[in-house]
């Protein structure tokens, strides 16, 4: 069967295609090439897989890879859980609902760097408000950002605080799309509030869950600005993620190596996100 002829001539595509090719396609293809070279911005020498070998050989680069995964799954998981709970609360018709929705969403609007600097000050080990407050009630607060075992989780917490508003908003939209008939039917059958939540709400907000998980997972995997503003990957390498490692390699003049890091990040995101969206969207069709 012949495809129906498009209503628009081909040259309509041209401006978009040019922009896409010059600004997106060409750099992407070029980066795949430079990832296989030792590159100093003037000349590039082909060195095969050396950059990738180097990347996986260095303990702090590998640690950065792990941190990326921990950070991404931690933030996207908590964002969807807290986002759903907040959305349920904020659609239940509680007092000052509109105002509270604004409050929850507000951090999304604030500059990430601003948030990072503010929380870095709040989490200062001796002068920060958090530890000064804890001190008042007799607790010696830890070094939120200066302890190697805690820094990454402190940043993840701030990321949750900043990002949960967007997740909540998506969930609110998802919840209002659920027909009240289901809840009525459940109530008639004698379902408790908890049962309604588990049996009606959770399955039916699935599209919203998929959106929240996908968006925040991608955001988490390539997260950079918040981490850079708060710890620059420190102390030492303990809160380094792929994006900050790539940036540091770039700063040090290892252009080939940092490009290889970007390719690894690209592949990593694709490996995680492509099957995930495939899986979720297929299930949706079956529903």
């Amino acid at each position: 069967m012949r495809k129906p002829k498009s209503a628009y001539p081909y040259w309509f595509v041209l401006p978009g295609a040019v922009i896409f090719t010059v600004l997106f396609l060409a750099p992407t293809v070029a980066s795949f090439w430079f990832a296989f070279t030792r590159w100093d911005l003037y000349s590039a020498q082909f060195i095969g897989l050396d950059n990738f070998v180097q990347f996986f050989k260095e303990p702090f680069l590998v640690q950065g890879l792990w941190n990326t995964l921990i950070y991404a799954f931690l933030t996207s998981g908590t964002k969807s859980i807290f986002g759903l709970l907040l959305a349920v609360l904020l659609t239940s018709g509680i007092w000052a609902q509109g105002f509270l929705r604004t409050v929850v969403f507000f951090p999304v609007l604030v500059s990430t760097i601003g948030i990072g600097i503010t929380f870095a000050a709040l989490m200062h080990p001796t002068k920060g408000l958090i530890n000064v407050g804890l001190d008042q009630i007799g607790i010696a607060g830890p070094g939120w950002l200066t302890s190697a075992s805690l820094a990454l989780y402190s940043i993840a917490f701030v990321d949750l605080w900043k990002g949960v508003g967007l997740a909540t908003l998506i969930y609110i939209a998802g919840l209002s799309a659920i027909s009240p008939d289901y809840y009525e039917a459940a109530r008639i059958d004698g379902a408790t509030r908890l049962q309604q939540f588990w049996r009606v709400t959770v399955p039916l907000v699935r599209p919203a869950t998929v959106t929240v998980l996908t968006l925040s997972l991608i955001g988490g995997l390539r997260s950079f600005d918040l981490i850079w503003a708060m710890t620059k990957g420190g102390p030492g390498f303990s809160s380094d993620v792929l994006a900050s490692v790539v940036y540091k390699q770039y700063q040090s003049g290892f252009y080939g190596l940092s490009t290889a890091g970007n390719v690894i990040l690209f592949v990593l995101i694709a490996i995680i996100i492509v099957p995930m969206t495939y899986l979720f969207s297929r299930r949706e069709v079956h529903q």
Partner: protein
Amino acid sequence: MNRMIFGAFAGVGLLLAPTANAATLTVLVDSNTESVNAMQALTEAYSQAHPDVTFDLETRPGGSEGDNIIKTRLAIGEMADIFNYNAGSLFLNLKPIQTLADLSDLPSQSTIKPVFKPGVTSVDGKVRGVPFGAARGGGIFYNKKIYADIGLQVPVTWQQFMENNKKIKEAGFVPVVQTYGTSWTSQVLFLGDFFNIQAKQPDFAKLYTENKAKYATDPVAFRSFEKLEEIAKADYLNKDYGAATIDDGLRMIADAKGAHYPMLSHGIRALLKDDPKAAESIGYFAVPGDDDEHNGLTAWLPPALYVPAASPNLEAAKQFVDWAASVNGCETMIKAIGASGPYMIDGCALPTNLPSPVADMIPYFQTEGRTAPALEFLSPVKGPALEQITVEIGSGIKTAKQGAALYDADVGKQAKQLGLPNW
């Protein structure tokens, strides 16, 4: 024909030399207050003497952020006509032969101290920079009042230093201030220990560049990492060492909250600007070695002024940096920012009323064999992850052994990128 006309103009130009180079020169300087003030003083004085030359000053961040800007702008040909940047291994990373103008023939080269030139000489033997500012020491600031109150002597050996620390802690002060919030400061103790390596092993820099000496396996060099570990293990650090910044650190020494602060000597200028009296309570000594036979200071060459080879105002820019490196230029700088160490220009005398920590440092420079240039001025190899590694050792996240091995790997990466033989 065209060439002849050009030649004729050039001839006229030579006759009218002072007015021939009318230009607006762009200058990129690091945002450190001292650098900005010095550069402002230099450009203003120069413009007064040469009214047809004006300047357009622009600042950039320091540290690796600054490295990034310099390298990228040089690579894409958008560098300012004049910029300041480190001498030594960082200079060699700029691909100087391709990117920087040859300054070997400037008249001022004859009065620049010979010790400075290797730090700005590319592998083809051409000098491509002139000094900008004073030499620095990599040693330890100490609070003289705490020392006097407890009755301590300035330590000459590491053992004496650690004994002092013990007494300082018992007296209720912080023995060693560290400021990993400004992460580059974590390297100072390690890098400042190089005099002690050099004293015991004069050819270390050469072997190290040739990939024949390693920090993890050379017991003398390994001590530099170990000293950092010892301080962290002994719990001699200020409580907020992980978040404190360089300003906090200097403040703690000035206010007698902390006794020692390993820091490059020019750090003091920032403090003195706000509080000139602070100098009286602060002294300076070199990082002590393991025996009292050798005691000396690791010295940092000042940064240099460079002119990119692609500058459209090449001649005018060269004339300016030539003047900046003259005795006259040096005196202009001293008038603007004082002296935090000896200048690299013959005939440029230091003022007599030096602040106390600087006065403590000068004798090292005046005695033969009591200073050694830092390793980054003797070898092109410096691992870029050093500051993270020293933060980890200095906070007890990694042992000195683990850190040294990691640093050796980091150095190897850099050597390969530079294309050095034997790596």
